[in-house]
């Protein structure tokens, strides 16, 4: 299972071009969904207004190298290590989902566009596809059953689904059915169970990418921008938070 390309076997019944068109349509759905989200929720207007207010309230102008340094620190902390989370469990879960999803998407694109009919797909690619999906499942299920705030703090059932579950729910269902389909297809070639699992995989994958305007999918674009803006406001003196205390009161 870890050494086979799930899309190579599928290419015997579905032309690779159809799979590639589907993948491009999903990428377009994410781009259009994010743009619609920006327009419909007026997020762009909100960010622009906040930026103008911050510029007006700035007590000092930042040099180019200072802005570049802030961007580098945002990438280093908020983007690459999910450092904005205050609890290590949520940070670890988010890192598993984030890196798992990136690995899963990159390897899917490689398998679809580079090795759709290849006699042998490089085993690191196929292995990483499985590992990425398992990382998403591990982080996602941990979050879904133990870390969701309404489950952890309000003692609600994890199965009480709300709109905020649309992203994580469709992502989990997509990778879970993808893995199951790959497992069944590897063991039994094409059969009824394999076709059913493939249909579920396509259904939830489509839901994941088409539901961008209603889910929190676009947070992967917004969050880094918001984190950078927050750092910039703090550095320019425009933040509405008090300045940090100059001395420590802790006696050690």
């Amino acid at each position, binding site marked *: 299972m870890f050494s086979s390309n799930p899309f190579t076997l599928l290419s015997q019944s579905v032309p690779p071009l159809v799979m590639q068109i589907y993948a491009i349509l999903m990428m377009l759905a994410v781009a259009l969904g994010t743009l619609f989200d920006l327009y419909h929720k007026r997020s762009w207007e909100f960010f622009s207004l906040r930026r103008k207010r911050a510029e007006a309230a700035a007590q000092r102008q930042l040099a180019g190298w200072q802005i570049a340094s802030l961007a580098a620190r945002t990438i280093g902390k908020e983007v690459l290590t999910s450092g904005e989370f205050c609890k290590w469990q949520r940070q670890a879960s988010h890192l598993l989902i984030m890196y798992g999803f990136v690995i899963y998407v990159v390897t899917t694109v490689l398998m679809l566009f580079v090795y759709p009919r290849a006699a042998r797909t490089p085993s690191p690619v196929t292995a990483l596809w499985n590992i990425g999906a398992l990382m998403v499942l591990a982080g996602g299920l941990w979050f879904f059953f133990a870390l969701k705030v*309404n489950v952890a703090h309000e003692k609600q059932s994890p199965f009480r689904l709300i709109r905020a579950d649309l992203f994580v729910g469709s992502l989990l269902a997509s990778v879970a059915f993808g893995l199951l389909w790959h497992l069944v297809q590897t063991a039994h070639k094409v059969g009824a169970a394999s076709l059913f699992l493939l249909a579920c995989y396509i259904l939830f994958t489509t839901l994941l990418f088409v539901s961008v305007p209603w889910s929190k999918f676009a947070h992967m674009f917004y969050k880094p921008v*918001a984190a950078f803006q927050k750092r910039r406001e703090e550095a320019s003196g425009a933040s*509405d938070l*008090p300045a940090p205390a100059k001395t420590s009161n802790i*006696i050690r």
Partner: protein
Amino acid sequence: MPTFVDMMRCDGCGECVEICPSDIMHIDRTYRRAYNIEPNFCWECYSCVKACPQHAIDVRGYADFAPMGHKVRVLREKEKGSVSWKIKYRDGRVKEFTFPIRTTPWGSIKGPGEYEAPDPKGLSSPLLAHEPTALKVAALPTLASVKD
């Protein structure tokens, strides 16, 4: 002046839900972010404002008597044992204050559950729990020792 949550900053960690003594900080059922379900019942204790690690909770007056954009922002620094306030008055003045809140490291105080269970025989003793060790004395005077 009840609290309200800036949903762009809230990451849904639940700290305010845990700490609110009035149990009015809850989780929104659509976006899974915190919000004040009943501002009229807010005690204005600022517990949630100080506890929020994302500084997502602000305090504002009702629009009918405080319509001119005042602001109260809080920064609690556990590692320094201090809490700082930035007050923006309605006439535009801004003042900042910093106060010590503790002198011992955060998390260093033992909770009641971390002590050993008291001996049931202690019920017949005139001493209170953890006396005399918590008072840092060897022994407390008793009636018998006073008579002697």
